[in-house]
């Protein structure tokens, strides 16, 4: 139990610290690296929560593919450092106030409306394994799975069309 608490709070500290680092870093590349650290810590939480397949998916898709895309675009545009000229001076305090309100609301719901603090019992055999996920995807969730494939195709075509250089028709 004590080991579980130490692991949880150590990882939670790493996750929150990297999130704050994303918020505060001036350089967009450092922000991206902080976000990768955040994704990796969250994927370790997935392993602790008996979801090994989702954890590996998180590493490959999020920390791998998506963040490489981000870093590629940052370096392609040369947008690492931008002048932090705040056009609206009142924006930052208002944002902090709204963030504190959101955190208080979320904490209230979690603590008082979250139900009794149940300790999760033992999982069934094969919980979170790729076999069971595949079985669910191709039986119960077949229609959403097909819709997701169409969505991915549309996003791919859209990205290509958006970035293609247009011919100038005078």
């Amino acid at each position, binding site marked *: 139990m004590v080991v579980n608490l130490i692991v949880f709070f150590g990882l939670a500290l790493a996750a929150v610290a990297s999130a704050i680092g*994303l918020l505060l870093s001036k350089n967009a590349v450092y922000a991206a690296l902080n976000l990768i650290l955040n994704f990796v810590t969250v994927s370790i939480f997935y392993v602790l929560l008996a979801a090994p397949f989702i954890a590996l998916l998180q590493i490959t898709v999020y920390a791998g593919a*998506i963040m490489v895309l981000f870093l590629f675009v940052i370096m392609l545009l040369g947008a690492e450092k931008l002048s932090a000229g705040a056009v609206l001076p009142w924006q930052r305090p208002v944002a902090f106030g709204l963030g504190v309100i959101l*955190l208080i609301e979320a904490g209230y719901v979690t603590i008082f409306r979250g139900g009794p*603090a149940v300790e999760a019992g033992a999982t069934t055999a094969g919980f979170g394994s790729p076999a069971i996920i595949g079985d669910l995807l191709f039986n119960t969730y077949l229609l959403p799975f097909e819709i997701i494939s169409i969505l991915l195709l*549309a996003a791919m075509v859209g*990205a290509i069309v958006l970035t293609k250089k247009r011919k100038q028709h005078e």
Partner: protein
Amino acid sequence: MNSLLPVQYYIGLSAILFTLGALGVLIRRNAIVVFMSVEMMLNAANLAFVAFARAANSMDGQIFVFFVIAVAASEVAVGLALIVEIFRTKHNINIDQMNSLRN
């Protein structure tokens, strides 16, 4: 592989990460960093999904996370294409300056 902590711990962490992501969207002016903050908010929601799936001993939450990751991937592809296109026309990605629909 047996985490004995109550699910509330994970939901609390998820709420903190979501709030930090929302703060990033509100505070930062670099469009790419705003995008990354949105990814962090999606990630916090995924953590809540997986925690509840573990507590309820049901696989459906993990399937939802699968779909959320797929939607996030397509969102990033289209969004970054839009940012590249905006940068080509305005040579800037400060979201305070994206205030006109033409030119």
